[in-house]
């Protein structure tokens, strides 16, 4: 088990290196950081001096080597835009993104799984058709449109919820959390729903399909024939078997939720990593963009690892192999 985790973590280093390499080779096409860092009156000579000082005239391989070399030593560099240490900038933004992603995931699971079970057990009910239709609409509308709609309905027209930002946050060590105040939850609700809608639909449809599949399997029929109570049958035997593939997909999707919360964060001015990344693109802030992408790659690797471990925990068949 330890060997397995170690192996995956070592693999992750290579994944991150590959991502850094790809990202770096693309940065040249994003734009020129120098014109974003200096004012209009700055002379061409001063711009050139800055370019030289920042090593932007060096060959691509040299710049990439310097970036990775510094990173491996724990030096994440300084932002071109704000001159702050990149590690600190990203670290202060991580909690906002993680909390948003986790709450979005929870919403999608808490609503998606029961809805999936419900629609699977009553495949022809009117309620089922209504739910399926609604979620189809939900998944077809782009995230930013959902976000703007929610803002205008609940923020502007009804005035129930804040339209932007994190509201009240509490500092716990280095973690700035919005989960401990009412204001924080109020601010979190709309962005989390926006981010979670796609996940919710996916979860629900997946659970429904799997559940219907499982309900047709032999062991369920036998259990039914033996007179196992329906409640126990549905929620213990059938659902547990349904969840194995569901967890894989949901887990893998969660990496995407974190990585692609950019749109939601922009619409709600949610101060997470995605918003930081967006600002950094605008200013061609190469150090921040580089580190962000590497961090996201690490997230993906980590999430995949957790999914693998969960798999083992849920499915006893995999555990037997591991013991040997």
């Amino acid at each position, binding site marked *: 088990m330890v060997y397995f985790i170690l192996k995956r973590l070592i693999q992750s280093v290579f994944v991150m290196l590959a991502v850094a390499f790809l990202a770096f080779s693309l940065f040249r096409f994003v734009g*020129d950081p120098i014109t974003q860092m*200096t004012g209009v009156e700055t002379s061409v*000579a001063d711009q050139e001096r800055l370019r030289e000082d920042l090593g932007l005239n060096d060959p691509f391989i040299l710049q990439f080597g310097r970036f990775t070399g510094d990173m491996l030593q724990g030096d994440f560099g300084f932002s071109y*835009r704000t001159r702050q240490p990149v590690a600190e900038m990203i670290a202060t933004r991580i909690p906002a993104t993680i909390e948003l992603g986790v709450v979005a995931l929870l919403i999608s699971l808490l609503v998606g799984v029961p809805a999936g079970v419900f629609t699977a057990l009553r495949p022809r009910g009117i309620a089922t058709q209504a739910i399926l239709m609604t979620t189809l609409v939900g998944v077809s509308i782009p995230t930013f449109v959902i976000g703007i709609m929610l803002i205008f309905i609940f923020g502007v027209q009804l005035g129930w919820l804040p339209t932007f930002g994190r509201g*009240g946050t509490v500092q716990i060590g280095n973690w700035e959390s919005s989960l401990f105040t009412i204001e924080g939850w109020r601010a979190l609700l709309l962005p989390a729903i926006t981010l979670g809608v796609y996940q919710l639909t996916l979860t629900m449809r997946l659970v429904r399909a799997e559940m219907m599949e499982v309900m047709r399997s032999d062991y369920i029929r036998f259990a039914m024939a033996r007179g196992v109570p329906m409640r126990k049958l549905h929620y213990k035997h059938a659902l547990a078997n349904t969840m194995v593939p569901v967890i894989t997909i949901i887990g893998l999707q969660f990496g995407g939720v974190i990585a692609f919360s950019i749109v939601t964060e922009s619409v709600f001015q949610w101060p997470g990593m995605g*918003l930081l990344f967006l600002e950094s693109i605008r200013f061609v802030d190469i150090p921040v963009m580089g580190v962000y992408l590497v961090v996201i790659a690490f997230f993906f690797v980590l999430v995949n690892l957790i999914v693998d471990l969960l798999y083992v925990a849920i499915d006893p068949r995999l555990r037997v192999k591991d013991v040997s």
Partner: protein
Amino acid sequence: MTYRNLRRSALLGSALTFCAMGATAETLRWASTTDPQTMDPHAVNSAPVLSFLNNIYEGLVRRGQDMSIEPSLATSWEPLSDENGWRFTLRQDVTFQDGAAFTAEDVMFSYQRASDEAADVRSWFAPVSEVRVVDDYTIDFVTTAPNPLFPDSIANFMILDKDWAESNDAALPARDAENYATMNVNGTGPFTLSSRDPGVRTTLVPHEAWWDDASHNVTEAVFTPIGNAATGLAALLSGEIDFIQPIPLQDVSQVEGRDGFKVLEGEETRVIMFGFGHEHEALLYSSDVTDTNPFTDPLVRRAAAHAIDIASINRVLFRGKIEAANQLVPAGISGYSETNQNRPAYDPDLAKELLAEAGYPDGFSFGLKCTNDRYINDEALCRAAASMFAAVGLNAELTTGPVRDYWTQLREDDFDMYLLGWSPGTFDMEHPIRFLLHSQDDEKKLGSWNFGNYSNARVDELLPQIQQEIDPTARQSMIDEAVAITQEDVAYIPLYTQPLIWAAKDNIDLTQRADNFFMLRWVTVN
């Protein structure tokens, strides 16, 4: 108190304010699209930074509501008698926000800091050869040549305290890594920083010991950058912010249609124009004329100018909010040439005639390069212009892109015709002559934004004379000559002055200054 503690207490404070719902009405919450990159007044010469920091720091002179120069940390200034330059008499009994006294040493220190290689504002001091402290409240700026506009040109040169900067290791602006002045301030201005969370929230409180009479009634000002225009509008309409700059043109009716909100409209000093590749030997993006560059012929440039229908652009794209421009600065800016107020009229027939005269009766195709995220409706403008050009036979191949790699492309001469907006940093006609009309000269740092390298020997000759002429009438006649030459040559096609559109709640009184700066000292919350 550390910066984090400050931030927490500020958050708590604003949470309480929110609960009280207007009980403490003097809190002003405002938003803009870009967060100031730094709190260091010398590190970045950009509008978001200078606008924001003008609330905290002050210069020797400052600009009033109508952009006029007025005394600030200097009470008066006069030309030096025996050499070129200016003597500034400084205000006494001014204290910095940490309580330290303001003296000429601080000005001297700030000059050295702002003119250092690490500073982005050092170009302001290019004409300065020496600075001398005469006594505690007198300082001389010696210039290499007579420089009548020098006091005007340093309105954004902000003074910080020598001892504060030195004792906090911030004697030079941070360029690669942050320093103390990136996140902390100590100015003489009307407001001081109470908390800063970059990109999220910055809170200002009044500086109680400010030397001037405070005419505002703001007790706390909270700034939030909101990059997404729709989010910003929603934040205003839901009442979470009191004021936002700017709002998109298409949202004006949304705001006007609601009770309790108002739109503030004005003219910015930014003139939008088309530029040409004067020096290019051949067109880059043409499908029919590849061996020569028709735009080197003034007739062709004039034809292009006559093809543009500003009135239609104004009506269709700008809801009547733009002012047609005839030169590179709008009327009202010092040095504006009253004698050259005519712009090429919209006349497609004349344009076709001119093209025929130049040898292109059927027109030709060329590449037009534009930004799509820099100026108001820039992409739509270029689409409209391209179809107007096409109507006279000038088939523009339009390429639009984000501004972040636009300037690089222009600097690499990768265009046939391009879009440019220019706001004169010194609010004088000399500024665009220096940057846009003088021939490119990296050595003398002139013509650095003259991408197409328009070059006219007489204009080049006039620029230093304009810069040095003390007599206003003689100076103006030289400017008039330069403007006349460049209009005759159609060096650029000036299109219009960009509108300035802010929105606020009805109970907020504020001043919209033409440079798009937002000054908290003119705000009243009713």
